[in-house]
């Protein structure tokens, strides 16, 4: 293996008992919190701004700017950690919670200090029983050691973290749907304005950040923004955890600086394609990658700007890899089914459009498609993308666009063959 990872967020992962507070404290855990609590909140926010930290939940919004929207003078305000990871192919937040929950809690307290939140919530995907258990245990350890609770480190700052489990709905990863769900309602997204920074949880100013985003915060505070900016690119500073899965020898999470070429992740870190086969396609950003990249895009640098320049989206950095004997049409049909099942039903284009597209794609994959179906699919997706209430609808166009843009020949083959020409 030529390449190595750059372990910042994953630095403790190799340690035994890395999830315990003992291991955390032994390797400098909560020192950043101590430092932050001695720094004025606005200065902490400024640090995060200068570091150029961008949200890892998929949209890449600058985190410091988001914190800066919060009016601190009218408590209560809330921080909500988005741990609802559900995008097919993504599994970084789960492992961050399982292996280093204290890093997350430390980041949450720092963020809460910055935005003046006395309470924060971890909205954890319900299916993540083990990760949630780890976080729950870490929370109680943190209370025992005084890194949570009253008067943390004698600063006078009180903070509580409450773990809240979801109940099975991908849409609850969307931040306003998440808030609805956390308030005990159907997880359907809210109208904006008002934005969560104005009226979020319980109609109070609220920041929602992804697990990985928050996990970066202690490192920025501990080492300074300049140190953070040494990694990655100008527009995508820092490191990023890529979840590599599918037809690779060593699927897993790999932390590298932004801008690392996809080839390094797939061929070197993940050990290349299994069974000596060739790469056919990969998703640069999970099921919502619009579109999936073909083998020609193996040298794209994995950062927001480069992936976008190459015509797709970095999303969550979930790289699902398909070898040359895998059927991309079938994979896309599965994604489509996922979106149809997970559409919350609120808006017409996504509810009806995914229902429609799932039927067309199923037909196509089963070899019952017609030539017109390809155009029809493109027409229908065009009526979803950019027209739906939330981004789930946009994501749901990815499978269609991927087929139509990169793999239209494979789709035609299905029609002509009246069946799938591939093994898998």
């Amino acid at each position: 293996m030529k390449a190595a990872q750059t372990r910042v967020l994953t630095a403790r992962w190799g340690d035994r008992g890395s999830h315990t507070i003992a291991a955390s404290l032994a390797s400098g855990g909560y020192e950043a919190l101590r430092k932050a609590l001695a720094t004025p909140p606005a200065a902490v926010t400024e640090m995060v701004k200068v570091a150029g930290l961008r949200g890892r939940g998929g949209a890449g919004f600058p985190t410091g700017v988001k914190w800066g929207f919060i009016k601190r003078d009218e408590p209560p305000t809330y921080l909500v950690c988005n741990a609802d990871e559900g995008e097919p192919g993504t599994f970084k937040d789960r492992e961050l919670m399982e292996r280093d929950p204290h890093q997350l809690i430390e980041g949450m307290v720092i963020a809460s200090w910055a935005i003046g939140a006395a309470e924060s919530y971890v909205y954890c995907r319900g299916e993540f029983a083990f990760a949630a258990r780890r976080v729950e245990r870490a929370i109680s350890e943190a209370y025992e050691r005084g890194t949570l609770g009253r008067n943390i480190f004698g600063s006078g700052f009180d903070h509580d973290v409450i773990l809240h489990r979801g109940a099975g709905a991908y849409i609850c990863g969307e931040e306003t749907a998440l808030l609805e769900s956390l308030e005990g309602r159907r997880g359907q997204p809210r109208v904006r304005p008002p934005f969560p920074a104005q009226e979020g949880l319980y109609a109070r100013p609220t920041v929602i950040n992804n697990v990985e985003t928050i996990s970066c915060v202690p490192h920025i505070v501990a080492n300074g923004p300049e140190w953070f900016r040494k990694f990655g690119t100008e527009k995508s500073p820092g490191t990023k955890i890529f979840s590599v899965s599918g037809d690779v020898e060593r699927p897993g999470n790999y932390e590298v600086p932004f801008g690392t070429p996809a080839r390094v992740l797939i061929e070197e870190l993940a050990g290349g394609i299994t069974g000596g086969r060739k790469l056919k396609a990969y998703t640069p950003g999970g099921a919502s990658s619009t579109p999936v990249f073909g083998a020609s895009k193996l040298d794209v640098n994995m950062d927001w700007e480069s992936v976008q320049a190459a015509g797709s989206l970095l999303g969550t950095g979930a790289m699902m890899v398909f070898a040359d004997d895998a059927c991309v049409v079938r994979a896309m049909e599965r994604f489509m089914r996922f979106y149809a099942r997970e559409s919350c039903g609120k808006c017409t284009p996504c509810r009806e459009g995914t229902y429609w597209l799932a039927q067309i794609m199923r037909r196509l994959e089963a070899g019952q498609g017609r030539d017109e179906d390809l155009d029809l699919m493109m027409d229908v997706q065009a009526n979803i993308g950019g027209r739906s209430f939330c981004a789930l609808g946009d994501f749901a166009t990815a499978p269609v666009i991927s087929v139509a843009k990169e793999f239209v020949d494979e789709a035609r083959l299905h029609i002509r063959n009246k069946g799938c020409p591939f093994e898998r």
Partner: protein
Amino acid sequence: MSAPGGPSPRRPAFAPLAEETRAAMRRLMARYPNPRSALMSMLYLVQAEHGCVSEAGIEEVAGMLDLTKAEVASVATFYTMLKREPLGRYLVSVCTQPPCALAGAGSLRRALEEELGVGFGQTTPDGAITLEEVECVCVCDGAPAVQVNYESYEHLTPEAAVELVRKLRSGGAVPPPVHGSVPVPREAIHRELAGLGGHDPDRGGGES
């Protein structure tokens, strides 16, 4: 609750919830600035006791939160982990999204269906196991992955999967997952999902 597309199937009548369960629900309600936030947790508790979100449970939860039954059912029918039919002791969830599909989820499914004699969405007649399909449980690095009461078993072969469900059914010692904890039966896991207990250091501190 009315099932989509028709009258709801006959469901066993459930006894009222135990007083301890109600007390636990009140504790959950007190955890939040607005008690309604505990709604999903309360429904998990109903599931722990009745095996599903029963009508009796909906009625109690509605009463405690001052909601209509329609409001509670509206939430209950939105989430896939809240079930309308009683679950078996173990819920076996097979992921069929591409990473798992590429790694053989299809043959896992066939092996399990054959072994258990039930399809997705069904429960074995002995009430031991409910089989279901899930959409990516985000353990794609462990594909093909199966969850048993939300504990993930990774890289399962059809043979290992069959072995696993046999053990689950017979009450024998179940092999631990590669990382995570040994699954606990329905009641315990739903109590934990409700946010009660579960941070038992041993279980939380299991092998990683």
